[in-house]
């Protein structure tokens, strides 16, 4: 389970990625943040952001709140 949830539903690309990029440095290393994002580009861009920033992309899930992406702060 994630440690916190970032609700980016209704936001268009690249806003969910920007929201994740703002939040991740504020949480302790090891924290898992779940980004809720229904923009289809998030499925591509959140894993790509993790790769570019050296953060851990844990998984993409589709739950009751729609598509979601778990990121663990790695450093």
């Amino acid at each position, binding site marked *: 389970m994630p440690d916190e949830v970032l609700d980016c539903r209704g936001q*268009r690309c*690249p806003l969910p990625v*920007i929201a994740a*990029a703002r939040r991740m440095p504020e949480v302790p290393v090891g924290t898992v943040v779940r980004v809720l994002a229904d923009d*289809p580009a998030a499925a*591509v*861009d959140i894993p790509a*952001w993790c790769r*570019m920033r050296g953060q851990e992309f844990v998984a993409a899930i589709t739950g009751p709140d729609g598509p979601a992406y778990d990121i663990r702060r790695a450093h």
Partner: protein
Amino acid sequence: MNASPVYLDAATAAPTHPVARQALLAALDDGWADPGKLYGQARRARQLLDAAREATAQTLGVRADELSFTSSGTTAAHGAVLGGLAGRRRVGPTLVHSAIEHSAVLHAAERHVAAGGVADPVPVDRLGRLDLSAWSDAVRAPGVALAALISASHEVGTVQPVAEAAAACAGAGVPLYVDAAQSVGRVPLPAGWSVLTASAHKWGGPSGVGLLAVRKGTRWESPWPADDREGGRTPGSVNLPAVVAAAASLRAAAADAAAEETRLAPLVDRIRARVAAEVPDVEVVGDPVLRLPHLVTFSCLYVDGEALLHALDRRGFAVSSGSSCTSSTLRPSHVLEAMGVLSHGNVRVSLHRETTEADVERFLAELPGIVAGLRAEAGVVGL
């Protein structure tokens, strides 16, 4: 704010080649009659059509009777896919295709699936290059009627391993269709295909002319209502003046192709290197070496693709984008998605015979400031 225009979207449509313009104007006067009729004007039109077919077939390295002119590159691609599947429907229902085919091919595949057929997409790697081992497995599976592979990605420029993919197809007895829209008139064509298509406005010919080549012995059956024109492969009367212009400009483009490749490839290298070095947080995508000579794509982190296109347009730069906010469907490019690379803030730059070094230098000089300005406006600097 008006800057002199720099057109960098040749992969969508290259500026009209001067040879195309001349040929079009001459053929408007001389080639308006129906080439199928039995009178003098028709014979003149027939001569023009035959000469255009002969010249184009020679450039492609096919026989004239293997080549049809279609009403667009899209129509050619639709016909290639649906006709290749129809011709071998007794073998099976499956179309194998790369995940990065042009949308014209994917839309034909959707039609095939809606009619009860099967489509089996094969993945690419991070550089946009076909997974050959997955491809070989896919074409060897039972029930494969046709395989489709783009010669080089129209979005990121990565050249595909067509010869190896064709060998796998030959081993499995599956015909290969190659969409060569970005290659014809620019680079030598790969070998081993059974069906090939191209589009005239990619090499500086008029829009509304496609090429469909079907090799002798290929089991291909027209998916359209019957029509005896163009070898029975595509219905309707050809736009003869446009076909004549397409053929003339292809001959001219092919004659200059090697020199243009030598001139443009280093400019693309320069864009790849300078964009990566001078724009922070940018991902230059596609294979850096095995690529088309005239096309380069990159994505700028945290930048809205549509805003970037508008900002570039205000400075006179015409480019294309695979970002979702620039597409009518609001979905990111399926090519960038298949590669797993950043899709927002995406720009595709494609060069042509009129592109100068000065054009490229001005683009490179202005891009970092434009991206920085958009990031400052969005408040994402330092993220």
